[in-house]
């Protein structure tokens, strides 16, 4: 029993241990310099990531409330990797910050929440994991303590996430009322498709929609992304979104199987709306963080295409795309983070002639944007290709065609930044940036990830093999 507990929950336990280490360190009162504290946490995060690859087992704990499997361990490893990359990237921002230990405690609490949410086999655990992964994030959005915009972002985030949690809870209680159980394993047998159950599903789906910022529920996204510190923005747009997408796939596929006809139509409509709105708004953004916010909304629309596939390919393509999305989006955010932390510039116009002064960084940003757009040799192309393939298996070709057309529109706005960097003239370009080791290492991991997953096909096959 104890062995099972230690092995199945090892990732959660490790993250908890790190949180408490930081807490005791903070309470003990001995001051470390920010740099040594950050190095300490980064080493711990590397240990956390590496240990995730060993001793993966399938099983359940706590009377079926918690489950673990190789697939879940893999998903958790992806999130750990993303957290490590973000931690490396925030070096310049955190170097002079007063609350580094608290930043990591809150960041790791949200990671812990995501782990519990992924492993949940019960609506209650799912809800608690979701709350644990969003409430500390709202506090993190406020971590630029002297900026008003940052407080505004935190406030908007806590209000909108409270509202969406309200919808989600209402849906969960109606579902509990009609099925009489909270366990994911028992719910499908009790779902018969009565109107009340469909209504509860719609509420649950709206809750999910808020968290992944799919279109009718996306209004908080741009403001929060713009106001929050870049490290938190990238965490919000990649890690927390990725975790919720993983859970969403598993809940839609395994729990709401009896309602698959209903949810296909919903996913289909919301996907189209999300792609089109995300694209149209991304076209006219001037602030690069707002731009990346709307681009990430459009990307969620593409991910929903994969979810609508309702097959093993659907799950595999979503996980694969999130893997690629972690690398590409974090590479883009990494460069934006550096520029923002060192010069304070966040407009697309500021990036004109960026290539003249920082050739290496502009190549990193260019490769990231190519990958986000889906230009062939980069990984992003294959990610979107598999999503479309999974979606097309349902035979709704008009839907796929409209989505593919939107992909072409997205080329315009991604390439607009590349044009600004490489071709436009600028009297006062961003000066040459002195980068330290950690951000460099994180950008290297991201670019290597984009190139390797683009050229080697092993990743998709591996994810597919985990799903068997």
């Amino acid at each position: 029993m104890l062995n099972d507990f230690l092995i199945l929950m090892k990732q959660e336990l490790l993250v908890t241990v790190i949180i408490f280490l930081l807490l005791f360190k903070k309470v003990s009162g001995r001051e470390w310099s920010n740099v040594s504290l950050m190095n300490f946490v980064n080493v711990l995060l590397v240990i956390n990531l590496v240990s995730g690859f060993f001793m993966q087992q399938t099983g359940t704990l706590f009377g079926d409330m918690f489950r673990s499997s190789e697939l879940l361990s893999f998903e958790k490893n992806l999130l750990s990797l993303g957290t490590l990359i973000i931690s490396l990237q925030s070096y310049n921002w955190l170097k002079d910050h007063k609350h580094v230990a608290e930043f990591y405690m809150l960041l790791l609490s949200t990671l812990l929440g995501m782990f519990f949410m992924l492993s949940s086999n019960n609506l209650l655990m799912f809800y608690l994991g979701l709350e644990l992964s969003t409430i500390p994030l709202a506090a993190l959005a406020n971590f630029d303590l002297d900026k008003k915009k940052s407080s505004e972002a935190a406030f908007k985030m806590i209000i909108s996430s409270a509202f969406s949690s309200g919808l989600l809870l209402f849906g969960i209680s109606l579902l509990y009322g009609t099925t009489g159980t909270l366990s994911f394993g028992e719910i499908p047998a009790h779902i018969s498709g009565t109107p009340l159950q469909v209504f509860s599903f719609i509420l649950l789906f709206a809750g999910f929609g808020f968290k992944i910022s799919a279109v009718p529920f996306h209004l908080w996204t741009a403001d929060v992304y713009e106001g929050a510190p870049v490290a938190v923005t990238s965490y919000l747009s990649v890690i927390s979104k990725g975790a919720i997408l993983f859970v969403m796939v598993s809940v839609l596929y395994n729990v709401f199987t009896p309602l698959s006809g209903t949810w296909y139509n919903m996913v289909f409509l919301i996907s189209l709306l999300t792609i089109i709105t995300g694209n149209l708004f991304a076209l006219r953004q001037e602030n690069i963080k707002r731009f990346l916010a709307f681009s990430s909304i459009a990307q969620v629309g593409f991910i929903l295409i994969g979810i609508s596939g309702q097959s093993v390919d659907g799950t595999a393509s979503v996980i694969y795309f999130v893997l690629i999305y972690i690398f590409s989006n974090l590479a883009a955010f990494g460069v934006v983070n550096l520029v923002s932390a060192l010069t304070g510039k966040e407009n697309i116009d500021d990036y004109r002639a960026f290539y003249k002064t920082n050739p290496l960084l502009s190549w990193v940003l260019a490769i990231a944007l190519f990958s986000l757009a889906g230009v062939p040799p980069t990984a992003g192309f294959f990610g979107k290709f598999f999503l479309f393939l999974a979606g097309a298996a349902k035979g709704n070709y008009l839907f796929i065609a409209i989505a593919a057309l939107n992909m072409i529109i997205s080329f315009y706005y991604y390439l607009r930044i590349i044009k600004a960097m490489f071709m436009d003239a600028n009297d006062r370009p961003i000066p040459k940036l002195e980068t330290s080791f950690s951000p460099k290492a994180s950008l290297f991991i991201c670019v290597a990830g984009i190139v390797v997953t683009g050229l080697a096909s092993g990743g998709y096959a591996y994810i597919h093999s985990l799903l068997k």
Partner: protein
Amino acid sequence: MTASQIIFYILSAFILGTAVLSVTTRKIFRSAIWLLFSLIGVAGLYFWMEVEFIAAVQIVVYVGGIVVLIIFSLFLTQQSGEVMAKAPVVRKIAAALAVIFGFALTYMLVQQNGFEATGKPFDWSVEKIGNSMLGTADNGYSLPFEVVSMLLLAAMIGCIVIAMKAKPEEQQ
């Protein structure tokens, strides 16, 4: 109509009436007090269902904790005594329509749904709740209990960081 039903309708009318007053009153302090009455009504509903423990929790947590917190934070703002502006007519009509449609939808959904009885005996006692709160086997909720404690820890850390920001200069 039995006495039990009559009590139920009186309680419901009390809850809904005070809830409506809490939304429509134009002094924000009064609206907090009406909310207090509405929450007490909900506790009464739990007593009516003979789940005294949940009723007690409702009173301790909501009436004793949350409403007091709301009133405290209202006192800390400057405009707690002032009369709020009247809502425009368009908004009133929209709100009324939303309420009517929301009620119609919920009523229709609940009416059409045949709730099946699980057949399990409804048995609660504080001892049983305590055991399952800290149990690890089936129907044991020790894991959610621990996760909630992590959530509280994170919330406290977040609050401290945000609230501390007012006086970083003084400390130096």
